[in-house]
């Protein structure tokens, strides 16, 4: 099916199973440790690999002495650029060649790969590899290389620039103007499971157990890199311990293991260490964002401009799309957005936790807060006044948009009316207390996905696709869809994911997972319903599926009597006209209350609430968990997370979890997420929209706005750590 028209009433609308807050079907496997992750796969005769990283940011390898490592106990192979095979090339989304030559383009680039009988032997030997470098001057810091900025042009992202009307003139003549610059830091995904792969060859066929979010894409990248046919590659990844974008693309672990396994004719296993993940894999670029907002005296936006700088390797086009939501969130006749990308000699910047919106809204939604204060308007009222009736740049309708109800319902639940708009007025002991809000929005993409559903004579339903579940609940919602569509109890449905021998799927990323894979399954179930109805001699349009039976009029047949040795059907969803003719986003509103210690500047979140609309909610429990997880990311982004670049070495200094801070339990107090009812008839057959990343979008801004309300300090440089607040707090002498 291609999404070219509205969906209309369909079999999911009954919502007997879909939407219910059911426990995860894989929950028991996970809490008992029986869900096996890539590194836990056992294979006889396995060898272990350890990466040696470049310890310079840019330059050449002058010499690399592997003799001591090769002689070390247990070592079977030391791969370097001298003995690695030639590989295909491309940007990080197309290929991932390793050990290609003596050139070092970034810190942490693998320069050798040591393979031994045990992990400990490989690690010990890795320290014996003696690499001598000729260092050259690299460009490392974003802010000091802005003059080298270029217009990026990636094939898989919107154009870098957009313009409507005459921004410059409208801004210059606007009665109320705001011109502010926000910066967000370098961030690391910091997912729990490290990047890991077990690679083995069977003749010319490669099997990889690997932690990867998009298996079909990964297959392609590996084929290009290793120069082997796609059909020869099988990726298996039934469980992934978090990805957050860090496992969207193929990383060095998979390629190094595959190459070594081929040379050694034995399985090779590797997991990056926590410290290695920071440099060897991708991260989110820091951003510098200038926001210019011009309004009339009533607060109606006349001009809105958002300029963004981010960095990446010279060979990459990917940019951090921090201004993308600014193209669609608020009304206004004159608009300008620009993304500039600065070529830098640091590791690859790529997608992380709502790329674009996550950091874009931390600037835009704080600028809106600043603007509201300038106008002496309530921040919600300012947003209401700028609610667009259609997409202000594309001039197409929204598929569905309920931002205002989210804000209003959130305000009611949170007690927004008790907010004193004047900062620094509320205290609780040492704590200056403030509340803030921000809007949430995240695009709703749909990607090609296929599924197969099968009903066996014993009544078992098996769903198969090369989809992944990165901890979000995909297994569960897919089981719910199949159970609902075929009138089966949940226990009868077995969902099998994470294997490229199954039908091609979109994978998990960009909030497209549930909509794309769920719709493919919906289509497959529809096809199976039709087959079953026909077999039963019933009209597929009126047949009802319940309690393991199909019924029409007063006739009823057990499904198990109809399937013979088993009956299956395929389904497919493709994006279509709807994805061009409608502006599709999920929406929400965040509310946060924080305390700022008036002496030390320590900020602690006291409570948070997110109210969202995202079309049909497929499982109320996993949706809420996902939203809360995103809000926790928001706390991290506002208060904690930052990779610090040392420009002398071109590396991230705090590359471990002791010093790269993410929120811990004690940082997350009273937090809740609520979804308001909505169905989106234009998005996909499920009438759902993406929720994967919605929770993070705007969450950090609501905290920053609450900090301002608490103590009157507007910090435009994230994260808001106490050192930035100290000088803005009451004097203590």
């Amino acid at each position: 099916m291609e999404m070219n028209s509205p969906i209309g009433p369909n079999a999911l609308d009954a919502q007997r199973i879909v939407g219910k807050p059911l426990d995860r079907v894989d929950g028991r496997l996970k809490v008992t440790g029986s869900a096996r992750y890539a590194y836990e796969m056992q294979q006889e005769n396995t060898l272990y690999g350890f990466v040696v990283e470049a310890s310079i940011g840019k330059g050449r390898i002058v010499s690399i002495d592997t003799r001591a490592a090769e002689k070390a106990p247990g070592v079977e192979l030391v791969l370097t650029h001298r003995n690695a095979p030639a590989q295909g090339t491309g940007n990080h989304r197309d290929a991932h060649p390793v050990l290609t030559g003596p050139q070092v383009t970034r810190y942490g680039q693998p320069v050798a790969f040591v393979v031994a009988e045990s992990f400990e032997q490989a690690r010990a030997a890795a320290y014996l590899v003696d690499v001598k470098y000729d260092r050259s001057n690299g460009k490392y810091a974003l802010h000091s290389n802005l003059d080298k900025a270029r217009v990026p042009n990636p094939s898989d992202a919107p154009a870098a620039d957009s313009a409507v009307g005459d921004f410059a003139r409208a801004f210059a003549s606007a009665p109320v103007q705001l011109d502010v610059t926000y910066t967000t830091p370098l961030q690391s995904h910091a997912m729990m499971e490290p990047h890991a792969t077990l690679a083995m060859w069977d003749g010319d066929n490669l099997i990889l157990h690997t932690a990867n979010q998009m298996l079909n894409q990964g297959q392609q990248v590996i084929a290009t890199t290793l120069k082997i046919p796609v059909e020869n590659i099988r990726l298996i990844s039934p469980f992934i311990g978090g990805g957050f974008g860090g496992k969207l693309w193929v990383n060095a672990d998979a390629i190094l293991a595959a190459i070594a396994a081929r040379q050694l004719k034995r399985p090779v296993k590797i997991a990056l260490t926590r410290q290695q993940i920071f440099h060897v894999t991708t991260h989110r670029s820091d951003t510098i964002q200038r926001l210019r907002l011009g309004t009339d005296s009533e607060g109606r936006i006349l001009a809105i401009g958002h300029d963004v700088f981010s960095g990446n390797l010279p060979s990459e086009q990917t940019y951090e799309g921090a201004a993308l939501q600014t193209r669609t969130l608020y009304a206004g006749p004159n608009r300008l957005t620009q993304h500039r990308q600065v070529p830098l000699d640091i590791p690859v910047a790529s997608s992380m936790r709502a790329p674009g919106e996550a950091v874009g809204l931390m600037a835009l939604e704080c600028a809106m807060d600043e603007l509201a204060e300038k106008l002496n308007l309530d921040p919600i009222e300012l947003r209401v006044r700028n609610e667009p009736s259609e997409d202000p740049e594309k001039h197409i309708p929204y598929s569905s948009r309920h931002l205002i109800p989210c804000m209003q319902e959130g305000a009611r639940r949170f007690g927004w009316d008790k907010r004193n708009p004047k900062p620094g007025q509320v205290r609780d002991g040492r704590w200056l207390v403030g509340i803030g809000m921000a809007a949430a929005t995240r695009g709703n993409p749909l990607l090609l996905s296929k599924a197969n559903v099968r009903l066996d004579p014993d009544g078992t339903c098996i769903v198969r696709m090369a989809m992944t579940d990165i901890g979000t609940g995909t297994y569960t919602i897919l089981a719910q869809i199949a159970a609902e569509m075929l009138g089966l109890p949940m226990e009868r449905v077995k969902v099998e994911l994470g294997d490229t021998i199954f039908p091609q799927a979109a994978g998990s990323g960009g909030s497209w997972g549930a909509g794309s894979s769920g719709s493919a399954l919906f289509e497959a179930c529809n096809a199976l319903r039709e087959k079953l109805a026909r077999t039963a001699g019933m009209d597929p349009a009126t047949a009802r599926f319940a309690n393991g039976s199909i019924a029409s009029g007063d006739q009823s047949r057990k499904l198990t009597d109809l399937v013979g040795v088993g009956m299956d059907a395929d389904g497919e969803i493709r994006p279509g006209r709807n994805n061009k003719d409608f502006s599709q986003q999920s929406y929400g509103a965040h509310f946060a209350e924080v305390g700022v210690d008036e002496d030390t500047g320590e900020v602690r979140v006291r409570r948070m609430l997110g109210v969202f609309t995202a079309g049909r909610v497929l499982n109320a429990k996993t949706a809420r968990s996902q939203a809360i997880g995103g809000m926790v990311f928001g706390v991290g982004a506002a208060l904690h997370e930052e990779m610090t670049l040392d420009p002398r070495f071109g590396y991230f200094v705090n590359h471990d979890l002791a010093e790269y801070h993410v929120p811990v339990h004690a940082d997350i107090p009273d937090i809740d997420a609520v979804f308001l009812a909505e169905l989106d008839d234009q998005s996909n057959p499920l009438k759902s929209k993406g929720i994967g990343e919605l929770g993070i979008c705007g969450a950090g801004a609501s905290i920053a706005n609450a900090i301002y309300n608490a103590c009157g300090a507007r910090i435009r440089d994230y994260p808001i750590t106490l050192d930035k607040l100290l000088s803005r707090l009451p004097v203590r002498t």
Partner: protein
Amino acid sequence: MKAFTYQRADSTAQAAAAAVKPGAKIIAGGTNLLDLMKLQVETPSNLVDINRLPLDKIEETPDGGLRIGTLVRNSDLAADPHVRQRYGVLSRALLAGASAQLRNKATTGGNLLQRTRCYYFYDVTKPCNKRSPGSGCAALAGFNRIHAVLGTSEHCIATHPSDMAVAMQALDAKVETVNRQGETKVIPIAEFYRLPGNTPEIETSLKSGEIITAVTLPPPPPGVQLYRKVRDRASYAFALVSVAAIVDTAHGRIRSARLAFGGLAHRPWRVAQAEQGLANTPANTATFNAAADAVLEGARGYVGNDFKIPLTRRTLHSVLAEITRT
């Protein structure tokens, strides 16, 4: 991690004899040592495991103090009724440190001897005088947000990361040791830690092979005890600045005060002059200010950590205001 041999000590004397050999290293909880070994910051060739030694008791001493065996785990020490009742500052400091899992493993002696969290120290590809004497100090002109502002040298600006040691410093703890010859020694904590000077690799006054057996606490001084840790997140973060305070106040006047600081120097920081200055003065902003001046005498920031100077002042104000109010 380099290959190493492992031996389990059956007696303190045996442990000391093994520990004095080149390349030997004591392992207690292992929560710091093993991390450093994985990164080859520490490369012992022989590990001497002391976990079976009978050094895990907390006993009252005849003078009314407490003797804490070196193998007492941080969580047990924090939960001990004597400690909670009479040495609240120590219990609080312990519970402000690390995480529950780490505290269950971490020992008293290991905590005292845990090494700095300086990022460059943790990465063997970077210059660091403490790890590799003479190689330079990458933190000096680098990222030094968590580094020291007091007692630094041009060779090293690392801090000692322990919370527990800060409270012990305020409590005038003594470190008991034994060496290979079986000779015991009692080292006042004020003399236990060293400033970096031009030998930042030497951190304490312990001699090679000298083993910590216990820490003793004299009876607590009068007054209210308080530990305040300022950090970047609510838990599981090292102190940017911490204060262990024991202040005796009556009718708005301070009778006596003890103040020790963490996060500021290569060792827990205590300034006699600041404490004496507070004694017999009214509890007000002026006296707090004078105390802060005395504590921060000679303080110097290195850009990234400049904020620690005003932060210390503000935190001290806050602590003294709170403690003299109660």
